[in-house]
């Protein structure tokens, strides 16, 4: 099958055919398959103490009889292996990554440098407070910065990710209602049908029932449906604004008022905070609890699936229940500077959500980011993110994209927007999945697809503020080229991608007959 493949700047196109690209000729080999008995990398210091047999120190019945089967490889092999394996990833530093709801903005390297300072990287978490004053001051300053950005007075940095922050917020909600004698009565949490999947999953984990609130024709919360469902059984409303369609809900004050009057708490999913920094604050919209994804708006690298951090900012009525330990600042009376400490002494607290103080290394990076931008820089970042999204949308309204991939809800979005691929599917037989896979051949990461669920063939596009106009134009050109192919020969798309290290994978088999680890002693292929 002869195919004209697009020229891209990151992939070598095969010479006019579907023959294997160099990446594809290199088959996947695991570190286990490179193992040869007798090879090694690690060398340890001499014990320098008496060396009795292990059995004299620990009873044999408690000891392992067969060593764990770890790979036996030399250091050069380890470096070469992971270097080669790494090249089978696409990454943000290599190209456009408009993955909706994920805020794939540039990861500044100064943040990595300061996180690696020994005073941060080699600071033991059980260090006494008086000998970790710099770390505690950093945490305090980050808390204050996030409080200002969110418009809420109190912060806990402890949650490890957005999902962890959601669980924290729901446990805070439970503690709040318990204190009011309403824990058993308030057992339902309202979430819009456009919510991130973590929201309903967190609701279940926190022992609550999900009640879905419908979306109105304009893409916002259906107020009538909300009024009908907010009642004395409502524990909380979980909402993101701008929502997962990228639309700011103008009725937000009324939404939060309805839930507050019904007695529920207001939870703001901060996944989309990058749209509004310095423009409007969740606290001012009426929310009680906000989680902030430091790996989205505050530039922590995503690491292929973490680490992140999901600090929460809360209102006065929620404050007594915040997780412990909490960072405290004590003014010294003697003219010296303030002292910082960790305190467990909060009897109404929900308790701990994890070990030690949280993902401190992430706090360092995000604090460095906030210091770099300052208040006006954060505002400028949000404004540019919104400008970039709207520019990209305007370009996507032109020509083929405009015909085949219309905006799902006809309103001005903020930092991201959702297109419907339904016309493309009906007219060209090109599903959102096919378009996404063909984008891979153009050296771009596809948008989030099939989310939010209420849009047919959804494509959720978030360019972020750190992309240039040229890169946005490049995406438009790639989409146009893909739709042109679809018009001429739809099979090109259904066969895509062609140039990636592997092509479409059998995901059904991977779940039906799962192979989740390598059998021991597997011979090299």
């Amino acid at each position, binding site marked *: 099958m002869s195919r004209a493949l697009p020229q891209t700047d990151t992939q070598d196109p095969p010479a006019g055919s579907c023959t294997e690209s160099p990446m594809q000729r290199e088959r996947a080999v695991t570190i286990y398959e490179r193992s040869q008995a007798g090879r090694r990398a690690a060398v340890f210091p001499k014990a320098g103490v008496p060396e009795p047999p292990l059995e004299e120190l620990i009873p044999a019945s408690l000891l392992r009889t067969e060593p764990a089967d*770890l790979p036996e490889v030399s250091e050069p092999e380890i470096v070469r292996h992971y270097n080669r*394996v790494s090249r*089978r990833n696409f990454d*943000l530093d290599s190209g456009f990554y408009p993955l909706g709801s994920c805020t794939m903005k540039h990861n500044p390297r100064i943040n990595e440098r300061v996180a690696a300072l020994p005073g941060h990287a080699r600071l033991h978490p059980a260090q006494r407070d008086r000998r970790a004053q710099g770390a505690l001051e950093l945490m305090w300053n980050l808390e204050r*910065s996030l409080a200002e950005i969110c418009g809420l007075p109190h912060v806990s940095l402890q949650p490890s990710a957005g999902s962890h922050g959601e669980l924290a917020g729901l446990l805070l909600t439970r503690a709040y209602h318990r204190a009011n004698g309403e824990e058993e009565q308030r057992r339902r949490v309202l979430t819009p049908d456009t919510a991130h999947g973590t929201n309903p999953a967190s609701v279940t984990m926190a022992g609550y029932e999900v009640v879905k609130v419908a979306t109105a024709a304009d893409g916002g919360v259906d107020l009538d449906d909300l009024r009908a469902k907010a009642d004395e059984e409502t524990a909380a409303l979980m909402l993101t604004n701008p929502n997962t369609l990228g639309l700011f809900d103008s009725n937000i004050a009324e939404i939060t008022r309805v839930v507050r009057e019904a007695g529920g708490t207001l939870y703001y999913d901060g996944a989309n905070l990058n749209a509004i920094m310095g423009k409007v604050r969740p606290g001012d919209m009426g929310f009680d609890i906000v989680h902030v994804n430091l790996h989205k708006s505050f530039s922590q690298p995503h690491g292929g699936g*973490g680490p992140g951090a999901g600090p929460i900012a809360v209102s006065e009525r929620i404050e007594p229940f915040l997780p412990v330990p909490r960072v405290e600042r004590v003014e010294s009376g003697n003219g010296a500077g303030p002292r910082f400490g960790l305190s467990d002494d909060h009897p109404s607290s929900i308790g701990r959500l994890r070990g030690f103080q949280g993902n401190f290394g992430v706090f360092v990076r995000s604090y460095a980011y906030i210091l770099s931008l300052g208040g006006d820089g954060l505002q400028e970042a949000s404004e540019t993110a919104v400008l970039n999204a709207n520019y990209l949308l305007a370009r996507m309204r032109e020509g083929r994209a405009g015909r085949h991939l219309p905006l799902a809800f006809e309103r001005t979005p903020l930092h991201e927007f959702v297109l419907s691929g339904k016309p493309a599917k009906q007219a060209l037989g090109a599903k959102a999945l096919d378009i996404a896979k063909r984008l891979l051949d153009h050296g771009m990461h596809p948008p989030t697809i099939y989310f939010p669920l209420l849009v047919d063939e959804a494509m959720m596009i978030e360019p972020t503020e*750190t992309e240039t106009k040229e890169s946005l134009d490049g995406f438009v050109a790639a989409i146009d080229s893909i739709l042109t192919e679809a018009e001429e020969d739809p099979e090109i798309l259904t066969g895509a991608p062609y140039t990636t290290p592997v092509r479409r994978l059998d995901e059904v088999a991977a779940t039906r007959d799962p192979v989740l680890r390598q059998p021991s002693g597997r011979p090299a292929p």
Partner: protein
Amino acid sequence: MTRYTSATDRDREQMLATIGVGSVEELFADVPDDLRLSRPLQLDDGLSETEVYERLRGLAARNADAESELCFLGGGMYDHYVPAIVDAITSRSEFLTPYTPYQPEISQGGLQTMFEFQTAMSELTALPVSSAGLYEGPSSVASAGYMAIAAAGRRRFVVSAGMHPHSRQTLATYSQGYRADVATVPLVDGVTDLGALADALDQDTAAVMVQNPNYLGAIEDLAPLAAAAHDVGALLIVSCDPISLGVLRPPGEAGADIAVGEGQPLGGRLDYGGPSFGFFCAREEHMRRMPGRISGETTDVDGRRGFVLALQTREQHIRREKATHNICTAQALNALGGMIYLSWLGKRGLVELGTLLARRTAFARERLAAVAGVTPLNDAPVLREFAIAVDAPADAVLDHCADRGIAAGIPLGPDYREHPDGLLVAITERRSAAEIERLAEALEEAIAVTGALGGRAEGERVGSR
């Protein structure tokens, strides 16, 4: 300050013209005026890169880190040497900057290393299925509890007092949500009291939870604990130190149903507590209930070997309120660091490291026991950490040692009232015999000075906290 954006004035003009608006402000028209922030954010002005570096360097300099003092602190995170290749590989853009591998065709690097990690963790724990990692240790214990509730259809846990206090506290927090009861079983002679455990078990018990080595450093005999749990149809959940699994009987072999733990010891930075990673391994029957991403091997349309996120029907983005857990972003890069470290250790290195730790730790316990005013809290076998009582107020002893550049240990009093002046002392391959000697001398001096100054009589000490 404009930073990391590249839109010039000319770009902005062109972009606004294309959009058909006069200003960026018009794009925010849906935000009601009365809700807008009508003033600038009250944050400092942006700084240049060199200023940011100096500011952060100044803060870092006010921390006593393990580079600048002798660190005998452990309690779940340890000052192991992190080989240079870990940082070199994990700082590559290809690993550092992608999102979760939702597009497998361009995420084979991440998916393959997850698969390698799963294989290694499964080997270490001797349990057949491993996820690709959770947030960290204590929340992994709480997540194991959540799964045990689903597996056993019961809502009660029996937890050893040897479980890390942070794990027990985290479990208590999560239990408010999933409505579980938690009973705690005491230690006797440093290890979980088997008799008390048997008494605490009943037909409502979903799981028994223990840590190995336990928080006081003692090695538990898991097999009878597993038998006791299984007798009432409960699961055994073991939180384990991955380094210990080079030499200790693995939990899967001793009868555990789930093994979880803190991944920091595997080549992770101390980072004042995170980010690290948690691991989660279980018996096969729990595969479709497990929390966290899991990579699975498959083939592409041309028959090439490849990897994908498997069993996604457990997960929040597919199953929403019916998901088995809410976890999404976890700690993929840290888990990769753990896998690189395990490759560096290799099959023999992990055993050698465990053996080295056991010998140095035994030596250190014996040496400190010879110090006037130091008593080991128990005689149980230990691997990398041990508990002592000092004959002086623990806080004063620690302060005295700190002033001599030694972080001597973690005080046990706040979590174990029966050991008001207990200290937990950890040894790694970085702590030489000479450094252990320095610790012994510092403790001796500290106890002599603060014990005398403290002037508390023996009878007063107990119960005064």
